[in-house]
């Protein structure tokens, strides 16, 4: 077998991920779903939103790492997989900063 010098370790074709992993991830997703509803049951004021998003992010993370095989892929694939989030953060930070800073100066549109 040729050594893969330049392409990094890449998964599934040389070894398949054990089926048990997929089932454990699924049960974790079910637990997170129950947790989502459980957390939403309590009125925690401003905390409800970050908690809900945190749980959603946890679900998304295990889908990306295990179902989408990123955990078993090369660093380059990991970078590409994360790139969408990087640009999304840029979108949110820059656009939100526009809206948030609108009342700061007495110019037209300062009403926000």
């Amino acid at each position, binding site marked *: 077998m040729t050594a893969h010098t330049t392409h990094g370790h890449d998964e599934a074709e040389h070894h398949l991920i054990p089926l048990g992993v997929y089932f454990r991830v699924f049960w974790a997703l079910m637990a997170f779903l129950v947790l989502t509803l459980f957390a939403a049951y309590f009125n925690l004021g401003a905390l409800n939103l970050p908690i809900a998003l945190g749980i959603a992010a946890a679900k998304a993370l295990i889908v990306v790492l295990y179902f989408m095989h990123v955990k078993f892929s090369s660093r380059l694939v990991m970078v590409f997989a994360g790139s969408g989030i990087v640009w999304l953060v840029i979108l949110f930070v820059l656009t939100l900063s526009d809206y948030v800073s609108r009342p700061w100066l007495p110019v037209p549109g300062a009403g*926000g």
Partner: protein
Amino acid sequence: MVSEAHPGLSHEVGAAGPHTGGHGDGHAGALQHQFDDIAQQRESNSLGMWLFLATEVMMFGGLFFAYSLFRWKFDAAFHEASLHQNVALGTVNTFILLFSSLTMALAVHAAGSKKTGRLLAFLAITWLMGLGFLIVKAFEWGHDLHIGLIPGVNWSYYDDPHHLEELLSKNIGVHEVKMFWTIYFCMTGLHAIHMVVGLLVVGGTMIYAAKGAFLNGNDQPVEIVGLYWHLVDIIWIFLFPLLYLIAGFHPERFLGGGGH
């Protein structure tokens, strides 16, 4: 057919000929001529798909931003409007998609194991789950159409003076709640379009699989389809708490289908 650039290597696609790249595990027929070896090909395909998924994240990201902005600005209105959501159906749909992600992952595994029967079975279950999701959504939207909450189609819910009074008593502007519904239908509508595309692609994959297309070592197309399906699932994972659980989870209203 031996290419000049790679003496000694046979690049004829589909041929199960000798492959001096050293892969004795049956991938010979799957290597395309522009790649040095199968590992490079697989990684390139993966990178290309992830790049596409990044564009999808940005597309939905714009809508998620619109949601974030208007939820911030119209907090009470969003809270109020979300009371009309059917949390039970939203939960069912979340379960459906999470389960379909499992069956999709199992389908990819089956393709890698060259087990066509299993591959077809898991793809079929995934497909049916996707269809189920759309049926539930159609039911939800049908209800919204009935009571007049669909922008541009039947927007009459807030024409009713009782409903308007309810809003005014909580100091909520009509345009503010209408923004929730507009964003809700744009986001779930775009998501539903993605589900339809997913059904078409998974259906197409089943047809290819039935013809034995993924047995010569080239199981990656199934993996690529899987990546798309998982992304659509992930988008819903975020849509669910943001569109259904703003006002929290109330078991006593869970089965009642929200306010009318």
